């Protein structure tokens, strides 16, 4: 049975400079402390991001990956895209158009996925029980 972990969607501040990045990190850090954190940062309100903001994002991603999790960006404005490209971090993050898309991308399979018939080893060893009974 596959279990879908909850994905946390967090709204980024309008301006991501040194001061606001520190404040935002205080809000984000607890969410990254669990096992396999799955976080989406909604950037739709972001109008300005500077070097300190990018550093904070990179640090967040690093912390998420340390715990086998991931952090994705959603609704990045053209201005923010330019800044991410300028600082060569545009390929580091997965970026999606909407938060919903980003959240869906975390689930490899939904909770109601089809459970295969028989034990997992059947395709490898065949019908072992049948062989036992025959033997």
């Amino acid at each position, binding site marked *: 049975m596959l279990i879908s972990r909850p994905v946390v969607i967090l709204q980024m501040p309008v301006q991501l*400079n040194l001061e606001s990045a520190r404040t935002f990190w205080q809000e984000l850090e607890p969410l990254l402390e669990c096992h396999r954190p799955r976080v989406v940062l909604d950037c739709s309100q972001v109008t*300005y991001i*500077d*070097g*300190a903001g990018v550093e904070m994002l990179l640090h967040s991603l690093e912390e998420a990956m340390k715990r086998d999790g991931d952090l994705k960006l959603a609704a990045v404005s*053209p*201005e923010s*895209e*330019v*800044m991410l*490209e*300028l*600082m*060569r971090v545009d390929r580091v993050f997965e970026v999606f158009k909407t938060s919903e898309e980003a959240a869906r991308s975390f689930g490899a399979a939904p909770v109601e996925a089809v459970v295969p018939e028989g034990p997992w080893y059947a395709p490898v060893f065949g019908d072992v029980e049948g062989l036992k009974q025959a033997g």
Partner: protein
Amino acid sequence: MLGAIAIVGPEASELERVSPDTRSTRAVRSERFGSGVPLACLEVLGRSTLDRVVGEWRQIGVDAITLLADSCFASVREEIDQSAREFPPTWVEDAWGSVPQILKHYSECGIDAAVVVRVAAHIETDSVEAVRFHREQGRPVTRAFDGEGSLDVWIVDTASTGAGEDVGAPLFLEDSARYSVDGYVNRLADPSDLRRLVADSLNSRCQLRPQGAEIRPGVWMGEGAEVDRRARIVGPAFIGRQSKIEEQCLITRSSNVESNCQVDYGTVVEDSTILPNTYVGIGLDVSHSIVNRTRLLNLERNVTVDIGDPGIIRQNRIPQEVATRQSPFPMGWGRVGFTQNAKISLEEGQDV
């Protein structure tokens, strides 16, 4: 004798549509980059279009040159003054309104024809041939055209104008002759045209040549430019005078770094323009962009970003000899600058 008037001012087509009664409501099209400096006044490959126009006139022996800047650009006066190295412009309240008076003065001084140019586009044409065409046509005004329409270039018989006439009237006569420009024209209508001009020049698709020495095929460097031996300049590219390219940088794909810039360690500049007096920080990737001090215009996304972080981009320290250069002429009537060929002179402060 031949005179010339160069105007840094609003587009002429705006004047054509505005009636004399509403002349004060002239619109100013934004052939500017961000800060408001007209594109023709920005340094491109070592020299602004304005400077090149005036330089060409001096080269062909124009007898009198007047350079006017309209007060609508007063907010960027310093940048425009610095863009005209031959001599800085004279600032006037209404540049177009000054034209008839200047033409009348030229006529009184024996100058029978004048080239009037609104400095905006980069136009490659034979000025001498154009004047000869004008004289053959026998009409008071000749206007230049290319395949896309009219250009803000006229040749005017100075005797056909008089002071007190409507602004622009001498230039917009319906029976003016049409001179077809067959050479390269870049209208510099928006910032992407600036990049196109640079790429066309560096790839020899026009006659515009960078200022400086071609240190190897496709790579030009201005006087005093420094490139770290561990940086890579992959031509075609241009490095302006007094600029520094630091270690591990890569400048490529028709990029131009204009004068007094610094591109810091490990930064890549690809298909981009770094305008004068700009510092570009460490480890950046500048692509398909125009960078001017604290402002970056990404041409792919058509997005302008004002970057307040001085560690990323910022204004570079301006050399003292450039910072203190000022126009010697106060705002007022146009002051005529005469070349060595001129046999007439003006008293200091004399009205034109």
